[in-house]
């Protein structure tokens, strides 16, 4: 009954329901809010990577125009422990004089205007006792954490298989630090009213901020309300409760006024985490005809001194291709750096670059077409458990993509294709993305006029949650999209999960699905209490819903509208709560497969200058059921642009003397601009996935993955230069 057998509203490209607000400047982001009596905060950051503060003089700052308060470790409130939420959150700032990284908050200045706060922050004088910092991941003194998540994997006998393999690839692949850099400056506007607190806050998980802030400040969870109806992007940056949030809350308590703390762009580089650099050591063993016999994948990523991070780069090697012998190991190294953190496709983006580069090297080694070798080693079942996949259209991704791209036109010889001064290269990469889902809740309410609204505390970071959930509820309640209002981003609504890990659509969608089913059941039961209702003796199982009406299956005239049922019973509205928890792979006897994809790239390399130009990209993805193709395409396009950045531009550079991020501006940290993005052909393949009731697989991240190796592989085809480090720069192509 609430199964999606005949999608009516799902699939085609409904325009974004929040579009009118966004194209008129009316969507309000956290820094757009102002409150009466609001004061402004500016932070001061450490300028050493390790040591302690020996003197901190706030006299001049305190006397500066408009300043209301200066908070340092000498007068900060003691805060309680910040609980972990999936991963750790930073502990309270300003609790002692210890410095663990360059850019750590050491003071916050509150003033009547932003200009006064910023100017006063510059007047704070600090002296330090500097200790030697650990900044190099290969520094032997740095602490190494082996198997940090207990996910190191081994099956078969890799050592023997590698020894016996007629063909072996043994290479090291590295990726650089990247910074999320959502365009919206992360802002917390904190307002206390007695013991209750309201936060307008930039994040990807309002319930996480609510839990952490309430714990740190020792107030009940319900006393903290977090509002995030809109946020200017996240890409993972909003998945922890960063230290500026409790700073704003503390500042608001100190001055007894609402305080707005808006990070600057340079502060966004140190205050919100970044994608860790990675080293991937990869060994592939194969037969002479290119069949994998062994994969050994080890990775090294970085950690701050006081945090954790989940970045299992090697895990892609456990599910991407069939191999009878596999070993994966991850290690982390602790450094005096700002926090490493999730960034769009954590772990997978780096690990896939290594694996898909190595597979390409293997193809050349055995003389097989790079497309064919991927098809040859396709994993029909989960290679680790032998279980069937919940769905897996990697093969179709590769085949359809190859056709669209014209892969058959490729001359396999290196440097054989050219156009004037430009060498042309074709590259391919496959992508098998991780699966992730967390519990989530939603409430669906039908009003007296037959319209509906859906409430959940989750936020829409730009992926389209408002729109696809309105479509889904409309589909399940037999309404038009325009009749469903979405209310998100408020912790007073049913508790939701993170807009992260490509997991929100399945989590929230399953909760909305559950709520709609319960709601219709309530309507049917209510109708039964009305002897005059045409539905009075129709069992729930036989009820269908269409155009806002319930009716008996096969008998469309025998029914009653939702609005009429409410009217008959004198109700203004009726609500049902729904929730979802991920299914169990054991119970279903299948392995949940994340999204799958294939990338085909044409690069053009200027023979004399080494200039790398992307001519076109074909990206084909299996996202299970696509709820809205227009918005889904945008997710893939955005991911592709992120992948171009990772491949060719993005590199967060740490000065090895000071630990300072040396390029923490948009002038220096390059991300793709409009002119960097070529024609991108986007297509979807695959079937509704069997692991959740709505058949979706998250697609927020997969678009990014595989772009970098496809580009690197294309550059090799064009030039014969195998580049095993990201980003790829023209000096490497020339050198």
């Amino acid at each position, binding site marked *: 009954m609430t199964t999606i057998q005949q999608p009516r509203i799902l699939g085609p490209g409904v325009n974004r329901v929040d579009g009118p607000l966004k194209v008129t400047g009316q969507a309000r982001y956290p820094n757009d809010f102002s409150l009466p009596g609001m004061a402004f905060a500016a932070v001061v950051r450490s300028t050493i990577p390790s040591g302690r503060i020996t003197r901190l003089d706030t006299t001049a700052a305190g006397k500066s125009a408009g300043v209301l308060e200066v908070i340092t470790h000498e007068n900060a409130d003691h805060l309680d422990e910040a609980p972990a939420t999936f991963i750790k959150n930073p502990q309270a700032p300003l609790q002692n004089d210890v410095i663990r990284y360059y850019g750590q908050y050491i003071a916050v200045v509150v003033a009547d205007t932003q200009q006064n706060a910023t100017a006063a922050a510059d007047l704070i004088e600090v002296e330090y006792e500097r200790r030697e910092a650990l900044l190099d991941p290969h520094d032997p003194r740095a602490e190494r954490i082996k198997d940090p998540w207990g996910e190191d994997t081994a099956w078969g006998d890799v050592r023997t298989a590698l020894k016996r393999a007629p063909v072996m690839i043994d290479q090291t692949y590295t990726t650089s630090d990247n910074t999320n850099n959502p365009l919206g400056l992360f802002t917390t506007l904190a307002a206390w009213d007695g013991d209750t607190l309201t936060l307008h806050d930039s994040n990807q998980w309002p319930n996480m901020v609510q839990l952490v802030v309430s714990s740190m400040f020792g107030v009940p969870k319900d006393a903290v309300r977090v509002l995030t109806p809109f946020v200017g992007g996240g890409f993972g940056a909003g998945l922890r409760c960063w230290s500026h949030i409790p700073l704003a809350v503390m500042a608001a308590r100190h001055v007894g006024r609402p305080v707005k703390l808006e990070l600057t762009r340079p502060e966004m580089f140190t205050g919100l985490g970044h994608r860790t650099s990675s080293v991937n050591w990869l060994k592939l063993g194969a037969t002479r005809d290119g069949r994998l016999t062994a994969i050994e994948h080890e990775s090294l990523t970085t950690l701050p001194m006081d945090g954790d991070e989940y970045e299992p780069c090697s895990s892609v090697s456990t599910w991407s291709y069939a191999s009878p012998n596999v070993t994966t190991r991850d290690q982390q190294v602790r450094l005096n750096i700002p926090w490493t953190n999730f960034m769009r496709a954590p772990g997978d983006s780096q690990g896939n670059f290594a694996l898909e580069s190595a597979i390409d090297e293997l193809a050349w080694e055995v003389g097989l077409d790079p497309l064919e070798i991927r098809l040859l080693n396709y994993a029909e079942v989960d290679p680790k458990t032998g279980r069937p996949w919940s769905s897996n259209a990697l093969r179709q991704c590769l085949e359809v993509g190859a056709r669209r791209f014209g892969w058959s036109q490729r001359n396999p010889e290196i440097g054989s294709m050219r156009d004037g001064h430009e060498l042309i290269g074709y590259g391919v990469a496959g992508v098998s993305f991780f699966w992730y889902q967390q519990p989530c809740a939603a409430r669906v309410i039908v009003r007296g006029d037959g319209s509906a609204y859906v409430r959940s505390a989750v936020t829409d970071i730009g992926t389209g949650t408002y729109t696809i959930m309105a479509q889904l509820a409309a589909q399940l309640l037999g309404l038009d999209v325009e009749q469903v209002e979405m209310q998100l981003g408020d912790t007073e609504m049913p508790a939701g999960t993170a807009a992260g890990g490509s997991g929100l659509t399945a989590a929230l969608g399953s909760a909305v699905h559950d709520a709609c089913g319960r709601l219709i059941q309530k309507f049917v039961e209510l109708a039964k209490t009305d002897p005059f209702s045409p539905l009075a003796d129709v069992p729930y199982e036989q009820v269908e819903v269409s155009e806002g009406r319930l009716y008996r299956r096969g008998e469309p005239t025998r029914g009653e509208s939702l609005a009429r049922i409410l009217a008959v019973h004198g109700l203004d509205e009726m609500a049902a709560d729904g929730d979802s928890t991920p299914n169990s792979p054991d119970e279903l006897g299948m392995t949940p497969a994340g999204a799958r994809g294939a990338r085909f790239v044409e690069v053009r390399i200027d023979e004399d200058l080494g200039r790398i130009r992307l001519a076109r990209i074909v990206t084909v993805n299996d996202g299970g059921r696509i709820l809205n193709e227009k918005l889904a395409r945008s997710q893939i396009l*955005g991911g592709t642009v992120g992948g171009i950045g990772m491949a060719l531009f993005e590199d967060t550079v740490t000065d090895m003397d000071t630990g300072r991020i040396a390029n923490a501006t948009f002038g220096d940290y390059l991300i793709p601009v409009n002119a960097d993005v070529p024609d991108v052909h986007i297509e979807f393949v695959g079937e509704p996935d069997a692991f959740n009731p709505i058949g979706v697989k998250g697609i927020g991240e997969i678009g990014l993955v595989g772009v970098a190796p496809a580009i690197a592989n294309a550059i090799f085809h064009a030039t014969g230069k195998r580049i095993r480090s990201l980003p790829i720069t023209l000096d490497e192509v020339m050198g």
Partner: protein
Amino acid sequence: MTTLIVNGMEYPLDLADPRVTLLDALRDKLGLTGTKKGCDQGACGACTVIADGRRILSCLTLAAQCDDREITTIEGLESHPMQEAFMRHDAFQCGYCTSGQIMSAVALLGENRAGNDADIREFMSGNLCRCGAYSNIVSAVREVARHA
């Protein structure tokens, strides 16, 4: 006293603090928060507004420099075809850069720089979109330019 003329309305402003940028004046003093701050360093384009017919970065412009200049912000567009085209082509995701993109795109039409895709890409490259909606932005601008 400085007078800002924004979207046809006159706003007399007492700019005792000369450090106030046009961006901050629009957002904090006039309550016109449609114009966004993405970097405050002139590198991202989120704060783009049109001043006397030209697109400018309001974060690199002091409010005090704008006496009697005619400023148009996203709030001043009245159902511009560019806004409709942005929705139709899904030329935004989080929406944070969108005001700046649309103001840039509207100005681009007046600059006669929207004649082909290469030009649109080049002359829209001062507006960063981290969500990566660029191709859809090009589609939206192309469509409006063609019908202009």
